[in-house]
């Protein structure tokens, strides 16, 4: 074992860049995914059946196919379509499809949106009927009931499941290394492996980084659950 190599400044810097890329990917895809998930969850629990079917099919496909294939489809696949090819040199949103970071981000966001939407929709459906009836009795409109009563409590109740999803997403960002020119933690480890032929040291270091990051995320969610879901905890005697 030769861990000294890992701690050489240029290699530490490589891991540092990797950590930044991984975190940037994680948080931006979670942010975009959360917005998409909210819209999808509203559609899934909404009154309009065709929209329910379309969004249901979307989440089913996202949850039924591997993320790696989704990344490939967006990074390699979309470039094949002439419609996009004709636009990606000039027309604005399509110019981004040449950037690996954007492609990875898009794939991760769409994927996490699929999973999160189903969780949130489940929590919305589980809202107890009494709360909604009480809100209606106060004369709240459908929109107001959603905004003031259902969503705040449903989002809190999604928290335990969502914390799993966030940790899963952290691990899923390692797939960014399958896209050339992306330097996340896993890709940094792969580069050190190929430079020094030290697979154990390189990948163990990456594993340690992910482990620490997972524990930090889990700790953060424990803390927020303690605060936000305190009213659901068993009463302390």
């Amino acid at each position, binding site marked *: 074992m030769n861990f000294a190599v890992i701690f050489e400044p240029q290699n530490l810097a490589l891991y540092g860049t990797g950590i930044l890329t991984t975190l940037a990917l994680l948080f931006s895809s979670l942010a975009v995914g959360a917005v998409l998930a909210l819209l999808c969850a509203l559609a899934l629990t909404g009154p309009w059946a065709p929209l329910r079917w379309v969004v249901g099919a979307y989440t089913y496909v996202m949850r*039924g*196919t591997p993320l*790696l*294939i989704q990344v490939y489809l967006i990074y390699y696949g979309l470039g094949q379509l002439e419609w996009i090819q004709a636009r990606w040199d000039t027309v604005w949103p399509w110019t981004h499809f040449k950037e690996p970071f954007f492609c990875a981000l898009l794939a991760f966001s769409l994927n996490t949106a699929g999973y999160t939407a189903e969780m949130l929709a489940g929590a919305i459906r589980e809202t107890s009927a009494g709360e909604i009836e009480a809100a209606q009795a106060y004369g709240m409109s459908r929109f107001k009931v959603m905004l003031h009563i259902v969503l705040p409590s449903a989002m809190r109740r999604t928290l335990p499941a969502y914390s799993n999803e966030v940790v899963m997403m952290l691990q899923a960002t390692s*797939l960014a290394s399958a896209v050339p020119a992306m330097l996340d933690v896993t890709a940094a480890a792969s580069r050190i492996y190929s430079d020094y032929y030290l*697979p154990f040291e390189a990948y163990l270091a990456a594993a340690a980084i*992910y*482990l620490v990051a997972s524990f930090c995320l889990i700790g953060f969610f424990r803390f927020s659950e303690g605060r936000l879901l305190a009213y659901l905890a068993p009463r302390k005697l």
Partner: protein
Amino acid sequence: MSSYYTSILYGAVLTVGVSLAALLVSLVLGLAGAGAKLSGRPILVALATLYTTIIRGIPELVLMLLVFYGGTIGLNNLLEAMGSEATVDINPFLAGVLTIGFIYGAYMTETFRGAILAIPKGQAEAAWAFGMGRTQTFMRITAPQMVRYALPGFTNNWLVLIKATALVSLIGLQEMTYLAKQASAATRSPFAYFLFTAALFLIYTTVSLMVLRRLNARYSLGTKRVQL
């Protein structure tokens, strides 16, 4: 249908093979892990807890690369230290099956532990009172009942496991993701091939889901359902 599609279909056979073999490994590890966690012996409990905590905090891909590249070098160094001239290559199928099985063994451990805990303790006590041994109690009393409690968690784990097999393509196993990538590089029409592969995965997960629902119905026979 071009020959690339046919080759991807052959790759699908390998995908099914990897996933089933990995499932077998994970079931064995899961049962062993759950047994260790419930054994009440501090060393076993600590080991099993370490296993489930660490494995669930590391990405599958990193573990797979660690086992595949690290394992090859480790084995060869070991052989060299023993004075042998031979070199071994870990084959990607084995590396994939072992890593995926090892990872999902950790998830199965938690699922099985929950399922065993859900069975009333009196059942096992009654079996002991009848003079059954530990193995007999497990085979005749615990196992048939825990299936029902374990199935929902098992279904989730299995679906995630299927999707994880796509990662084996990154260590060079020629399953369908690998073949799709090759086909798309050769023909410059990646969209079609990846879409085809995604559809095959979707079929695989859908069929699994249908089978497991049947199984769930079968094992839930005779349980009381209350309509609120």
